[in-house]
């Protein structure tokens, strides 16, 4: 075995992720090769330094008690977002607004059981990546007349871009993304401090599909298909607000 073949598996070997026959191959190479065994030593030394020098933090007892009491309190049945961390004041206001919104829209609010389809996983990863890398927008703008043309030079279709400011969803800009093995448009909106990604691309299926909500890994999503276009909205917003958003997008579309 050459170094070129061994190197890519060196860390998997050190991390004990290889099966026995493959481990044996790497081991043989390490015995014969100073350069690779030197690298092995460095990686292992770093690992022991981390484990010796960096603490594994333990949850404080107070936190454990708080969570236990959260879990046992009936108040928290299927509620979310009323914790201090996520704008509980807004949640309260939103809740009161939503009572009337529900009456008007008669939303089918029961999210489907979590279905981790491949595409849903991709959507979540894309959303998290956009939060994580601060690469939220390629074209920052709150003006749909600036965002829409920006897409047209880059995609062979035109993603829906709406001004929903008066409804409380502020356009933040557009971004190119890659999903389902193709380039897609991502339109970003903000609602209070929440970020919402709307992914749009031409579907391979022509039939329409009505909006359906689901939850994946702590995010709410709504997906639907109209006029051959596939839409996915994802956010940590609650499902009511996300549903409202998806209605607004698909509704204003028909103007």
């Amino acid at each position, binding site marked *: *075995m050459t170094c070129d*073949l061994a190197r890519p*598996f060196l*860390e*998997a070997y050190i*991390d004990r*992720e*290889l*099966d026995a026959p*493959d481990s044996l*191959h790497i081991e043989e190479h390490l015995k014969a090769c100073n350069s690779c065994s030197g690298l092995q030593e*460095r*990686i292992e030394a*770093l690992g022991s*330094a*981390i*484990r*010796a*020098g*960096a603490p*594994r*933090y*333990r*949850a*404080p007892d*107070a*936190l*454990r008690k*708080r*969570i*236990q009491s*959260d*879990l*046992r309190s*009936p108040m928290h*049945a*299927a*509620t*979310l977002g009323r*914790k201090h*961390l*996520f704008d509980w004041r807004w949640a309260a206001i939103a809740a009161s607004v939503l009572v009337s919104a529900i009456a008007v829209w008669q939303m089918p609010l029961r999210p489907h*059981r*979590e279905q*981790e389809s*491949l595409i849903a*996983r991709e959507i979540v*990863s894309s959303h*998290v990546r956009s*939060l994580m*890398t*601060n690469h939220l927008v390629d074209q920052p703008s709150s003006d749909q007349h600036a965002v829409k043309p920006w897409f047209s030079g880059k995609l062979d279709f035109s993603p829906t871009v709406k001004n929903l400011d008066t409804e409380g969803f502020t356009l933040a800009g557009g971004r190119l993304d890659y999903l389902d093995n193709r380039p897609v448009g991502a339109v970003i909106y903000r609602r209070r401090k*929440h*970020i919402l990604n709307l992914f749009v691309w031409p579907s391979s299926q022509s039939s329409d599909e009505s909006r359906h909500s689901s*939850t*994946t*890994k*702590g*995010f709410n999503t709504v997906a639907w298909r109209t006029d051959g276009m596939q839409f996915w909205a994802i956010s*940590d917003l609650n499902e009511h607000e996300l549903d409202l958003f998806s209605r607004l997008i698909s509704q204003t579309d028909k103007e």
Partner: protein
Amino acid sequence: MHRSIAFPIQHQPVCPPARGAREAEETGAEPEDPTLTSAIADREERASFETAMLPHLDAAYNLARWMTRNEADAQDVVQEAYLRALRFYQGFAGGNGRGWLLAIVRNTCYTWMQRNRPLEQALLFDENAHFPDCVRANPETELLRRAREESIELCIRELPVEFREIIVMRELEGMSYREIAEAAEVPMGTVMSRLARGRKRLERLVHRALGKAE
């Protein structure tokens, strides 16, 4: 002699069965007062959740603590993450549960960071932005060892978060690549490349810190 290694690990997509539905069918109990039945089901669900997820509290807190780099924030994130996890518990397919829970903790962390520290987050990705004077020169070997230990903690803190989280899960939690892939919601290959790049960066940071000290 050119045997290429067929890498044995593959990312297995999790296909959660609808737990609640299945269990309800299996019990086949007489339909009673529906509110009472749902209250009991709710209590059972919570008990099952607590048994499955509370043992991972330290892992959840450790990850959040390293990601937010702050004790109070980590506590808030973890408390929020547990409530979210409870809501999404029906999507849990069973098994160890640590990867599943940490995926939610991690997402809660990112949501939190986006909201509270957008500027700092941008800085995180420039590792040259600043480097703290982690260690002071000290002739005593024991103290120097301590200093080194402290410096590695500070060096990990300086790592960009997408490497830091992987290093923490691997080296401090001892998670397998598969578990990390589940928690970070990326393919196994991405775990491997981030881990490799993270280790290289960390090594550089440590050398720089020790260079300053000695």
